[in-house]
């Protein structure tokens, strides 16, 4: 598998960019309201399916990289942080899209999810649990 390391890494990075961008755009569209055209598009089935597909590819590439570089969550702590924060990110995302009752609540949850997402990216780039705060 090491032979495909560069390609898998590229797939992983691009799916991170796509996943994050789509989440950003869907959240922004929903701020206009669920019934407005952008909001309806954000919640439409094709967009949802695109999001599931990108995230599945992202997850697959992540698992492949893990076995190629032989670094694992709960052994290598930068990966532990990524996994734990991934759950937080997903939870905030679901809360923002499904359970938020007011626009302000949705905006807050969406922004928090985006911050977490960016922090996960910084952890990945630094290979350090402290991410952007790493010395």
């Amino acid at each position, binding site marked *: *598998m090491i*032979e*495909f390391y560069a390609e898998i890494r590229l797939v992983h990075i691009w799916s991170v960019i796509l996943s994050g961008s789509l989440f950003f755009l869907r959240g922004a569209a929903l701020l206009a309201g669920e019934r407005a055209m952008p909001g309806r598009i954000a919640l439409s089935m094709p967009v949802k399916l695109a999001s599931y597909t990108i995230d*599945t590819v992202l997850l*697959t590439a992540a*698992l*492949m990289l*893990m*076995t190629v570089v032989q670094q694992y969550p709960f052994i290598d702590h930068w990966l532990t942080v990524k996994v734990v924060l991934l759950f937080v990110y997903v939870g905030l995302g679901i809360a923002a899209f499904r359970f938020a009752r007011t626009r302000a609540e949705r905006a807050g949850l969406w922004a928090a999810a985006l911050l977490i997402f960016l922090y996960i990216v910084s952890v990945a780039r630094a290979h350090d649990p402290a991410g952007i705060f790493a010395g």
Partner: protein
Amino acid sequence: MSDTRKLWTLLGVLLVVSFSVLLWSGTRIYEAAPPMPERVVAADGTEIYSRAEIEKGRQVWQSMGGMQLGSIWGHGGYVAPDWSADWLHREALAVLDGWARAEDGVPYTELGAERQAALQGRLRPLMRTNTYDAETGTITLASERAQAIREVSAHYESLFGDDPATAELRENYAMKNGTVPDAENRRVLSAFFWWTAWAAGTERPNDTITYTNNWPHEPLIGNKPPASTFLWSAFSVTFLLAGIGLLGWHYAVTHDREEARVPLPEFDPMRHVKATPSMLATAKYFWVLLALFLVQILFGAMTAHYQVEGQLVYGYEMAEILPYSITRTWHTQLAVLWIAVAWLGTGLYIGPAVSGHEPRFQRLGVNFLWVCLLVIVVGSFAGQWFAVMQTLGLENNFWFGHQGWEYADMGRFWQWFLFIGLMLWLVLVGRALWPTLTQKSEMRSIIGLLFLSTVAIGLFFAAALMWGEHTHISMVEYWRWWLVHLWVEGFFEVFATAVIAFLFTRLGLLQAKTATVAVLFATIIFMAGGVLGTLHHLYFAGSPTPVLALGASFSALEVVPLAYIGFEAYHTYRLGGATPWMRRYRWPVMFFIAVAFWNLVGAGLFGFLINPPLSLYYMQGLNLTPLHGHTALFGVYGMLGIGLVLFCLRGMKPELSWHEGILKTSFWCLNIGLALMALLTLLPLGTMQLFASLEHGYAYARSAEFMQQPFVDLLVWMRVPGDTIFSIGALALVVFVAGLWLFPKREDEVPVRSEKESRLGARAGE
């Protein structure tokens, strides 16, 4: 004579004839099985192996998981090699190498093509000639072979131990270190592997084909498909086309016949059936079933992952606790168990629902059987774990450990226990149905069919009890396929057809007589190919040519009804929309339609892909086998099990509103996940292996050299998307069922339809 009576007579005659021929085939297999020698000696008289060692070797092989780790004669797991083919190849190479070094002073691989061909020409008679003396029970081998056997045996003794020299190979084969810790056990294990390779490479007396019909493809010793495989493959395709033509004609004649319109009920007739205490008690069967399904998926994921990391699961040394052969055992065993639990639960639920009669202590019986099933699952799995960890001891293995026969792995004690449990189930279902069975009514015939299929499910499990600890492997295979093919593929199918028709009859959408005739006809068509089709699993398991011919011809006929399954799917679809209240059954019906789809794709197309003897000669035990296995076993029986569970749950909690969104997610995720698993990994990987098997021989297609290519790794990883989606589908199903108990929501009754709607809907009964 009425239509129904004629069909019953035809079915009876068909079953008597088919089973007579199947039993006769068993006697032929018994007579023509490769002999078990008393002694194997070298030309100078020194003993290489004794019968006791070969037999003990088989026990060792069974105790470590048998067919779950690698395969024998192509039957078993896919990550480790086929031990018969691997041994044969290694022994042939060792002889060739010995000659090259002695005569040319270089290894065999460094010789020119002409010289290699000359040595291969010398090797063929050496390996293929049958030197078994039936009077003394002795096989005598040339000294070169005796030397080669010592070399190959040393390799296996190293591989199955914890020798660092073979550590990488163990990882590639997903074997734990110290698979067989005892050195003497490793030596006799080699004896068994050698014997299976000997049978695969040695010609039958007075014949030019080997005991395994020249399987595996091994160019070094001239093992290539015999003429019979070409002949019967061609005939089998011809029979299939003839069968399709005949059935097409039958449909053309009968399909447009006017049938009495059924006045459709205004309300769901099952809605007001009051669930009796024993019917309500079956709920726990469905909860356990879902738990077993989730655990099965988990072990499946681990088993697939071992193909990538060998002994690790994402870095964790899992092979030390749950080695590959255990995760694969439990994965395959749970598949059959949870589907069987769906059958058992449905039978117990339907019995009193049909008759309205709750026999005394019925609930106690249902609860008792449930406890027994739990004990069987936990007890048999624990025994298998102790066996694979090599702590149970060979003397206890057969009864309480791991039998090593794929799908029939549990110890004999647990098989008896399960058989008795099935008899109890039969009694419980029978006594609930009895008042209806003895009453003269329209429903009697279809209920009789349903009951007969439950009797068959109960009794045919006894096939698993027909072999003993030391029964010849060819005969074990014969009975094992009675269990896997006849029990699972045959009578489960009859039960499925009968139960779906019965359910639609109960809902008032089909006339009892129409349904009975349709089910009887379907059963006749299915069993015409199905019973003798059992033999298609035995082409290369030490069986003679007539068995191959019968298996190829009749199993091709099994595909005939599948070619027309679109009729059934469309019919089911129409019934699903026949009345407004049928919306309540939308998802059970959708799962029944999925059953039809996977019956065509998984059982029909992917099944027939590997069915003709010539195809299977190259494909047996490659990834094209699990392609058929997953899409047919889960696609057909898994989907059916889920459909039945949903149907029973509808009746058990008729007043509740269903969260259709979760069920929709579950349905589509399960179907799309299964399709992705098949199309992204199993089909391309199997096809790559097929090319390798055709060009270089079977041993290469299963070797670490082939399976460890980066592209193969990549294909295995491609399972993750499909498997993830599939798992989400299973979780959604669990969430749905849990929600019925944890967050129940009542629904209002569906209103009466207009007269116009009633008239339109009545046409659906055609």
